């Protein structure tokens, strides 16, 4: 099979610049946040599945990892795990050199370049994707 190919592979940007973060990852809380046109709250009449551009994620801390004040987030489907890791690290004010691991089903760590939308399709339940995060390898 002969195919054309792009000369470079481009991942979705794995490190979001400061300004980009609020627009892509919006918290679902009652407290007023800086307005974001992309904010979505859970349990709305929005149709589930492909027509929804964002998916709901529930973040759970493992061990002595700091707990995020906001645990439920609506995240763009194309956000990568690495992007989510960078976001959580910023939110928890961890230094860049500190590691953060994210787990699905409390059993495996998805590859950093995997998109959360795909993980949601395969491992989401009750309309959300539950992810555990940890500063050390919890289920490595």
């Amino acid at each position: 099979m002969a195919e054309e190919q792009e000369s470079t592979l481009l991942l979705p940007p794995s490190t979001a610049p400061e300004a980009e973060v609020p627009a892509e990852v919006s918290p679902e809380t009652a407290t007023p946040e800086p307005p974001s046109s992309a904010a979505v709250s859970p349990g709305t009449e929005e149709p589930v599945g492909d027509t929804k551009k964002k998916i709901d994620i529930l973040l759970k801390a493992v061990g002595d990892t700091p707990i995020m004040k906001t645990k439920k987030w609506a995240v763009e489907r194309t956000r990568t795990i690495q992007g989510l890791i960078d976001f959580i690290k910023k939110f928890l004010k961890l230094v860049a050199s500190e590691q953060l691991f994210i787990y699905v089903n409390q059993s495996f760590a998805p590859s950093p370049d995997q998109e959360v939308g795909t993980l949601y399709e395969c491992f989401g339940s009750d309309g959300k994707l539950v992810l555990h995060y940890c500063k050390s390898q919890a289920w490595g």
Partner: protein
Amino acid sequence: MTDDKDVLRDVWFGRIPTCFTLYQDEITEREAEPYYLLLPRVSYLTLVTDKVKKHFQKVMRQEDISEIWFEYEGTPLKWHYPIGLLFDLLASSSALPWNITVHFKSFPEKDLLHCPSKDVIEAHFMSCVKEADALKHKSQVINEMQKKDHKQLWMGLQNDRFDQFWAINRKLMEYPAEENGFRYIPFRIYQASGILVPQPEIEPMLPVVEVQSLNHWTIVEVLKFTLLGVLLIF
């Protein structure tokens, strides 16, 4: 599974003849000869290229060497994709040997994951196995295994030991007799940009399809179902 032993062996022992050439802008103390190697399709670049690294580092100074990375015709090669996948996706229509360029500078942060040690490859591989078992057996089989079984799976891959690997992997490929198959069959579809489906990026996908309806489907039917112009299934 025993009927398929020949097929399993053929898949495991698949090799791609490869020629590694040092990138022309790397600083060397003398000419670097290309290095030839048969790469195992089922393994990972950073797991099987220690000799390549040593070969080129012999003609370079320590200060000019940082993390090794590989590139084919301008495309950085993701080490966390199996070698066979990379080849099929990018070079299968070109003549052999597969010509890969070796770099020791300017690591492309946006395109590649870092690979500081073999432990990282092991962690990635085991995560993939666990992810697959989550779909096949609700993680029951992989979780019931002892740590030494996980280790044996990895060592089998690392040391190219078919029997050692499959002694453990066969348990991950079994399902109870009363069931007709796995709960879900995990697969990923990778596509390069092609004539029929103009997509500029390779998008790994992990679709889930109900096993009941898949029981007697062929791969072609699965592909049609997922409505993609597809190059490869992993």
